[in-house]
């Protein structure tokens, strides 16, 4: 790896303020959603990205109310802290929340619970999501995905048109020119909307800090039972099948993303406030999705899930 060792300059991204232009862009997108669609919803996971989206929606329509319902696809393996937070936010902003359960899709025989060491319901939630979209007749689903998270997402549009089966077709994406958004669809089709496409993980954290947003406690350091697997720290829970040599122990950790408990790795951390969290990200040696066990399955994991209707 000869060519790589010669990095001479020390350029370090710093923590200077959040670029407000990103907020203006996201608000513009959300206002287009409200006008171009009949029944839009925000896909709410309780993670920092969807919390950011809700904040942006609040600002976009103020002093009016947020014109979107929230949809939470519950895998049944959530961190309890996230659910607590979700209910607090819904109550505080007077939002309409719909919850649909992967458990029900399993009971209905639509999906099969995975087995084995890496069993997770993360992939299963796509079916529950598509069913919910059909049930509520949502024509636009707003998500907090960002292009910097992952390679296939780097190619995603702001308005991503999905067919009757919720599928993403990378080759048939609509060109998006300037800031003109084309959300015209046929009955049965729907659009996934990504208002924070152009934000990075750091932008999100800086925004949360500047806006003084409350976030679920698991983003900060806390003591937790964990065990190690594949060089990552896993939160111990009843949902994970451990082998005998995977012995849990207590340590100080926090989470960088809050997905399903079976697919989110923890990081060792003592950060108990936003400044420290941001400091950790600036010096971090591991990317955000590097802590997502689901992405480690293969190089094209994300693209394949998107084709199947994931967001």
């Amino acid at each position: 790896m000869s060519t790589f060792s010669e990095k001479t300059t020390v350029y370090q991204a710093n923590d200077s303020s959040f670029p407000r232009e990103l907020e203006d862009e996201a608000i513009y997108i959300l206002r287009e959603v409200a006008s171009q669609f009949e029944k839009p919803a925000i896909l709410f996971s309780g993670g920092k990205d969807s919390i950011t989206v809700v904040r942006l929606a609040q600002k976009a329509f103020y002093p009016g109310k947020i014109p979107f319902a929230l949809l939470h696809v519950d895998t049944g393996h959530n961190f309890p802290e996230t659910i607590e937070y979700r209910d607090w936010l819904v109550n505080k902003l007077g939002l309409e929340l719909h919850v649909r359960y992967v458990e029900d899709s399993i009971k209905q025989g639509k999906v099969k619970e995975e087995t084995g060491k890496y069993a997770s319901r993360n992939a299963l939630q796509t079916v529950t999501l598509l069913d919910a979209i059909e049930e509520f007749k949502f024509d636009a689903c707003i998500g907090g995905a960002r292009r910097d998270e992952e390679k296939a997402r780097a190619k995603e549009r702001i308005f991503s048109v999905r067919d009757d089966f919720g599928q993403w077709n990378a080759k048939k994406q609509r060109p998006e020119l300037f800031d003109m958004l084309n959300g015209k669809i046929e009955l049965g089709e729907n659009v996934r909307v990504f208002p924070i496409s152009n934000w990075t993980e750091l932008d999100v954290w800086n925004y949360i800090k500047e806006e003084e947003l409350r976030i679920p406690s698991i983003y900060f350091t806390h003591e937790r039972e964990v065990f190690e697997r594949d060089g990552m720290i896993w939160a111990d829970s009843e949902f994970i099948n451990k082998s005998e040599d995977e012995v849990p122990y207590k340590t100080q950790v926090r989470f960088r993303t809050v997905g399903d408990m079976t697919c989110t790795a923890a990081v060792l951390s003592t950060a108990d406030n936003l400044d420290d969290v941001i400091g950790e990200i600036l010096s971090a040696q591991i990317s955000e999705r590097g802590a997502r066990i689901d992405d480690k399955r293969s190089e094209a994991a994300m693209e394949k899930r998107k084709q199947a209707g994931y967001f």
Partner: protein
Amino acid sequence: MDILRIATAGSVDDGKSTLIGRLLYETNSITQDKIEALESASKRKGLDFLDLSLLTDGLIAEREQGITIDVAHIYFSTPHRKYIIADTPGHFEYTRNMVTGASNTSVSIILIDARNGVVEQTKRHFYISSMLRIKNIIVAVNKMDLVAYSQEKFEAIKAELLGIAEQVSFKGQTLQFIPISSLYGENLVRKSEETPWYDGATLLDTLEHFSTQNSELSTIQARFPVQHVVRPKTEEYHDYRGYAGKIASGTFLVGDLVEALPSGQISKIKTIEKFGTQLESGNAKESVVITLEDNIDVSRGNMLVKVGEQPESRKEIKAKICWLDSQMLTVGKTYLLQHGINRVKAKVTNISSVIDIKNMSLSNEAPADGGLKLNEIGWISLKTASPIFADKYEENPANGSFILIDESSNGTVGVGFVE
């Protein structure tokens, strides 16, 4: 912190992906786990160096074919600003993606393989960058390591491109030439010792000094397309009526006399707000809510402009158009024209000429097969069902472009620039 938006262009294998990978690497924007993933992927491909292009070619088909198919957006930042790069594909068939990727940017980096010099793609990219009125063009002469960092080669390429620039550049466009090696990082972030004859800035240094598009848009005539009318109808805000939108261009001040288009009614700006905070002014690209002193008729798709600065009301539009769809554009066909956020039906009444980019010339005849094909650029006339309030693209890029939507597929099939 501001944002500089950049598009990279060049033929296949000129080194766009490598250049971007290198910029990310040297600005510490790649984390250790991604570098490790790159190392193992490079080894699997039998390479003895890190293939930085694997960072950006995200689709399965792209990795299989080793080419970039779709626009990828890549992010990095320096202590000075945040950068968004649209890495656009080089193949002719993907010209539409190049136009798309470049449409939001104020800098275009055109890569040239020093061994090949100026090729047809170079001209095409230059032309498109100028058509989009991208203010700053950097011509990065790449793979200088493969021509022994020859000054002569570099100067020859520069001279040839300057000749082309004479034909297509516009007033105020800047053009800079930088000899680089993306693979070895010469003149990207670090000044190269291999090019003592080059006394210009490195690529990153050049980028750090450009002004952003927004600062320029704020100085031209003000345009405010209304996206959404905010009417809370709560007790507290019983009579509140706010117009939400993103200022397309110019600056609005509280107290400005404004005219609503198309109604022509006039009122005065009472407040400019952001989430309840009252501002004295609003600049281009800011999402705000504007309230007016009088209750006049304004709804979504209307536009507020300052009195005395009205754009022309147009029902007959002449425009340059880049066709993005595999189905030809033909005379007589009706499309949905979207200007900003406003949609009207529009009929194509004439195709007057097509551009031959190879020779940088116009054929002043209608196209032989009667239409404009995918990736072609030409001049057309359109007639709209109701007037649109557009500026000439060259005077106001934020209010002078539109897209065409094919109502049978709902696809975005063309992008136009008002003349």
